[in-house]
């Protein structure tokens, strides 16, 4: 009895050809049914408005043949480098060099990031893109607290981004408060909304939690659209002040930073300043998250993700633990939102759609839930990669989707799926992703 699973596993690996052909035939048959009408018959309006149609057997046959061949190839690939078998295939020497790379990747990336404005000083496009990537890195790190550490699936993260952006936008345009005063306020307000969202969803788990957070994101957006007196509705808020260098504006005036430093003014100064601003904010997020993980609250978040019932049996107040996770994640979202508002100078509800939430969540999942480096790499790949494929035009989404599917087959738990312990006696051993739970949703 006990040997049966092993045998069947072996059988599926070795007894290939009949199995391969069977799968390929089934897939080809499905393709035939699907494409026979979609591709096989071409309809058009004739010269007198009547329907003309003709069959395209050649196209249909080549499509079905492609599916047949493709499914054989995919099945072979799946058997040889299946998702579970990858680690065994990698030789030990390669693995050790990988861990060497892994150790120095983060510092190397950080140094490179610090030098980006120096290297690409004259390339405005790259600087703008870098700022965008860093914004998403920050959002990813913020959401990582909620999804990656506490294991609470939040589909409405963009709500806090919006709260932060509108907090700064409205406070600055109505009361003339400066960016540096508004930044903490935006974080506090977003955290407040995080707690507010937290209360009703405390009892919810999994799919239900995801749906309510999704709805919350939409509610915030709809309130912004409809509360025209305050938010300007669909027209948004414009004329949001640009950030100043601690009170010194970055413009072409006599009081500007360039004039004070006695250098020639260039619009790039502001871009470089924004770059370092978002870098500092993102690094703050990272630093706080790393520290929080090593504090009791961070351990409680991870314990909550692993087993909520056990947490309660140990006297951990799961209510406040969840609320602090929501509030902390929301606060970083609020900071990022305030930055977004000051960078754009104009905000409207269109910037805060569900697509943004989905993108940030995709970054967290792709990066490996809970991994700071993984999230940064995923943000670079998602946002940077999206720009990279710009030349493909309409096929961009297709290529991108395929890349994501492939990565998720290759690494189902994200780019960096393993977990580093927060405390150790002798040696910090990474924990395989198989053991780490994904949370209750």
């Amino acid at each position, binding site marked *: 009895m006990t040997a049966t699973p092993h045998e069947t596993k072996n059988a599926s690996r070795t007894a290939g050809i009949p199995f391969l052909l069977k799968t390929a035939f089934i897939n080809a048959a499905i393709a035939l049914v699907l494409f026979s009408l979609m591709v096989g018959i071409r309809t058009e309006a004739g010269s007198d408005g009547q329907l003309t149609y003709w069959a395209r057997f050649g196209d249909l046959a080549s499509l079905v043949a492609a599916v047949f061949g493709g499914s054989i190839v995919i099945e072979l690939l799946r058997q040889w480098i299946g998702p579970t078998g990858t680690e065994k295939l990698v030789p030990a020497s390669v693995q050790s060099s990988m861990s060497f790379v892994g150790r120095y990747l983060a510092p190397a990336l950080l140094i490179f990031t610090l030098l980006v404005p120096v290297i690409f000083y004259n390339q405005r496009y790259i600087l703008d893109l870098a700022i965008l990537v860093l914004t998403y890195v920050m959002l990813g790190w913020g959401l990582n607290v909620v999804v990656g550490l506490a294991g609470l699936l939040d589909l409405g993260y963009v709500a806090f981004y919006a709260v932060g952006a509108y907090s700064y936008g409205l406070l600055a345009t109505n009361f003339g408060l400066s960016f540096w005063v508004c930044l903490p306020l935006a974080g506090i307000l977003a955290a407040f909304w995080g707690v507010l969202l937290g209360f009703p969803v405390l009892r919810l788990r999994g799919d239900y939690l995801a749906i309510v957070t999704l709805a919350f994101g939409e509610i915030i957006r709809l309130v912004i659209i409809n509360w025209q007196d305050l938010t300007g509705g669909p027209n948004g808020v414009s004329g949001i002040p640009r950030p100043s260098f601690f009170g010194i504006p970055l413009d072409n005036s006599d009081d500007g930073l360039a004039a004070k430093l006695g250098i020639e003014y260039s619009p790039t100064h502001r871009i470089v300043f924004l770059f370092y601003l978002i870098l500092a904010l993102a690094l703050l997020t990272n630093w706080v998250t790393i520290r929080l993980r090593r504090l009791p609250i961070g351990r409680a978040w991870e*314990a909550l993700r*692993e087993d909520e019932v*056990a947490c309660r049996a*140990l006297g951990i107040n799961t209510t406040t633990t969840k609320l602090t996770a929501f509030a902390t994640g929301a606060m970083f979202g609020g900071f990022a939102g305030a930055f977004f508002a000051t960078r754009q100078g104009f905000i409207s509800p269109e910037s805060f759609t569900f697509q943004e939430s989905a993108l940030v969540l995709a970054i967290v999942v792709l990066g490996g839930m809970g991994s700071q480096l993984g999230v940064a790499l995923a943000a670079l790949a998602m946002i940077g990669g999206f720009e990279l494929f710009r030349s493909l035009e309409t096929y961009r989404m297709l290529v991108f989707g395929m890349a994501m599917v492939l990565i998720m087959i290759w690494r189902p738990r994200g780019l960096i799926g393993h977990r580093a312990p927060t405390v*150790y006696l002798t040696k910090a051993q990474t924990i395989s992703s198989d053991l*780490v739970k994904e949370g209750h949703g």
Partner: protein
Amino acid sequence: MSGEPILSVDRLTMRFGGIVAVQDLSFAAERKKITALIGPNGAGKTTVFNCITGFYKPSGGAIRLTHDDGRQIALERLNDFRIAKQAKVARTFQNIRLFPGMTALENLMVAQHNALMLASGFTFLGLIGVPTYRNAEKQAIALATDWLKRINLLDRADDAAGNLAYGDQRRLEIARAMCTEPALLCLDEPAAGLNARESAALSELLLSIRDELGTSILLIEHDMSVVMEISDHIVVMDHGVKIAQGTPQEVRDDPKVIAAYLGTDEEEAAAVMESGS
């Protein structure tokens, strides 16, 4: 020391809809003693446990916990995490509930959450790294290390709990419960799935908890060898009511227990009870 029992359950009743799982159950657990709650499957033992540890709210009755200093706590009024936090009642689970993706050491650190939370000034002081928190963390690690030594898992401290052998996980769960520094330790079938050697090690661990630390223990157990060896007092339940109580010897000889526990086949009952002794 107060002469009162640490835990006294008075006319505890638990109903799920029309089903009465526990009816008018009264018993007491002596201070610094090991009390066992036994009974056939479905007798309502785990329900009693869940009422005591706050996972269920009893339909009726009172559960009193009396601390060493005479402080009395009505457990039926506390719920959820407060029983562990304020009343200092720790528990383990029938199906092990460790944090599998965290190391053995981290599991024991999470158990000290409330103490560390205070020391870290509810995170704010810890975030800026004040020395009082760092000292508290060192102490917490020392306590965890001490427990890892006791359960003989010091060399596996940095391994993921999910990677440990089954018997080690059982012992780690007990250590984790003990790291909350409880007054009463409730164990739900700690010997389930253990082999004879592991059961013996478990008995030794529980006796050392009672004798060296003076922690009172309440346990549910099916393994008669463990129950008979370590219990000071045994309460026998069947169909939600108490049918007998007393010392292991008294319970073993009680015809009602033998009849209820193993059906009416007294020969079989005697055989199993023999093997347990």
